[in-house]
């Protein structure tokens, strides 16, 4: 999709989403629900009330961060399917840092800010290190990163669950949860009166998108990263070590995924828990990044769309008894259609629309 024009990408993104929603509606009808009610409830759940908007933005914040993490790797020609695992490991590093340092540091607002900053740094380091593993395995052993990163997702979930269950859950509780963070560790809601969404979190996500965009497009290191992924020989002639670039790409991608974990632990949870129960932001992020043609800035509107779908999906799950998993399936369909731009080019040609695009 690199060669497609911006307008064409935009059209393909819209067409993919509409087609996937259409199929979703057909399935809703076929399973005995009313499609019109379904779509209107989906929209109401996304933007219908102030708390729904806050929920949409909360999901979008997570999808911007994880989407940017995926986009960095894809732009450099590496498939990082392990964002979910890096996100889990990052959030765990945040939780461990905050819980272990909280008794040592003075309480109050200053202590809280220090804890959040240190926790976030720990997440970025841990996420980057965890992503460097499949990078090293790909660069120096030729191991397919699609498969290694997926295996590392399973391993991250299993190990983090084990550590929390065995060492970090307080005595006498059966749930695999850590203790709650101190009260000073929290982001103020500011505009929205929501316990799990803060404009600061959204700001961090937007900032990350801009920083990564500038890094990829305005720095020579970022330029090397992208060229070595797509024109390996050209990059090699200009003295770029492709193997090191793969490791760097994965590390940077994992750092952003780790940051997502920190925001999830601090802004949304306020403690840490069994990763198997977490939302699959790292997977939905793949859809977000693809829809955005792997452009970190375009990730923002794509993440808003998916955040809305997610919020709407949960709403229909509660109110209409239409299973919320339907929306996950629709997201999968969007990915499928985005993968096949040729489908839309050919149909557009047949319909006599933009036939000169070829």
């Amino acid at each position, binding site marked *: 999709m690199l060669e497609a024009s911006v307008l064409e990408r935009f059209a393909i993104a819209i067409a993919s989403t509409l087609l996937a929603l259409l199929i979703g509606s057909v*399935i809703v009808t076929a*399973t005995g629900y009313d499609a019109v009610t379904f779509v209107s409830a989906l929209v109401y759940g996304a933007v219908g009330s102030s708390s729904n908007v806050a929920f949409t933005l909360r999901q979008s914040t997570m999808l911007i961060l994880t989407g940017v993490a995926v986009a960095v790797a894809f732009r450099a020609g590496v*498939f990082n*399917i392990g964002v979910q695992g890096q996100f889990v490991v990052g959030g765990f590093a945040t939780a461990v840092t905050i819980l272990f340092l909280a008794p040592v540091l003075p309480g109050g607002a200053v202590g809280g800010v220090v804890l959040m900053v240190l926790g976030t740094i720990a997440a970025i380091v841990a996420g980057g290190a965890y992503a460097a593993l499949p990078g090293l*395995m790909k660069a120096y*052993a*030729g*191991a*397919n990163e*699609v*498969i*290694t990163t*997926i*295996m*590392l997702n*399973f*391993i991250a979930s*299993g*190990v983090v*669950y*084990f550590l929390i*269950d*065995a060492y970090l859950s307080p005595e006498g509780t059966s749930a695999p949860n850590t203790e709650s963070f101190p009260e000073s560790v929290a982001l103020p809601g500011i505009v929205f009166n929501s316990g799990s969404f803060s404009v600061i979190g959204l700001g961090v996500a937007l900032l990350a998108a801009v920083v990564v965009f500038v890094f990829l497009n305005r720095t020579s290191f970022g330029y090397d990263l992208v060229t070595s992924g797509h024109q390996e020989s050209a990059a090699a002639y200009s003295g770029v070590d492709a193997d090191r670039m793969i490791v760097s790409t994965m590390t940077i991608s994992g750092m952003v995924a780790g940051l997502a974990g920190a925001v999830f632990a601090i802004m949304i949870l306020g403690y840490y828990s069994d990763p*198997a129960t977490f939302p*699959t932001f790292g*997977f939905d992020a*793949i*859809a977000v990044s*693809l829809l955005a043609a792997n452009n970190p800035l375009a990730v923002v509107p794509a993440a808003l769309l998916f955040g809305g779908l997610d919020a709407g999906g949960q709403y229909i799950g509660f109110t209409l008894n239409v*299973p919320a*998993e*339907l*929306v*996950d*399936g*629709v*997201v*999968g*369909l969007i*990915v*499928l259609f*985005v*993968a*096949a731009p*040729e*489908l839309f080019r*050919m149909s557009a040609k047949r319909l006599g629309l933009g036939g000169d695009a070829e």
Partner: protein
Amino acid sequence: MSVADYAAENRLTVSGALVVLLVVAVGVALDLPGSRLLTVGMIQRSFQAAMPIALAAIGGLYAEKSGVFNIGLEGFMIFGALTAAAAAWLISGDAPISQMDLWLAILVAVLFTAVLTVAFAVLTIRYKADQIVAGLAVWFIGLGFGPFGATVLWGGVSSPTLKNVNNVVIPGLVELPVVGRLLFDASPLVMLTVVLTVLAWIVLYRTRYGYWIQAAGENPEALDTAGVNVNRVRYATVIFSGAMAGLAGAVLSVGLSSGFTGTGVTMVNGRGWIAIVAYLFGNYNPIGTFFASLLFGAMDMLQIQLQTIGIALPGSITGLFPYLAVLVVLTLFGYTRVPAAVGEPYETEEE
């Protein structure tokens, strides 16, 4: 045999030996009683655990041999698992589920998954969709619609407890030591898997069609010149790979378990991904792939065996053995010589 082929074969042997040595070394380091670990029951369970992996892997290797990387195996397995459970439940109606119902359900699952795969094949072959992204999409679609379908049918993401396929016990012969229980008190699905493995080997390496499949992945232009429709061969292998993944999923839900589990990453739980590693490790040879699957099956069962002999490793850690094994295999074995034309859509001159 060319030098390159010989090196590839050797790498397989060497890394296979290394994996076995590593397992033994870990065993010695942890001071495990080997004789109590390697029991007939353990071997039997390993074969069972290997079935879904081997079936999906053989399908996947056919598709990749012909030039299409079907990375959606995991997703197709989810559809197969759900469809088989749903079909068994619907076919039996109010009556208890009979063995016949289960076999019918497996057939329905294979056919249904094959039909779904047609859409994947059309998108990747005709519309040149990115094979990796489209395959991932299949996984996401399965992760969404699998539990969705279960909720529509049963009101929850998992099915109620159904029935599973009985073992075939041959009286008399089953009394033989060791082989008796392995061969004559076994799931018929294990036999089916072995037969399909051998058939897949024969077709791939001993028939004209097998050569077409290999040519479609290695040198599609030559095959085209010889007058064979490359894309028709690819359609056939991709649809076959989906059908095999559907069978693998059905084996999981009504062969080994009694129903469909849709929580977390569903009951397929990464086996489709492990299948891809199994055929890479087996160097695209169905028989090698079967043994690689057996290795992963054994890893999977090791946790039960460790528990039964009272070695206290937490289940959440022993459950990770297969995934760790995949990482070790991929890192040691790493580079495989994939068919030359994998991932590239083929366009004939006339079109």
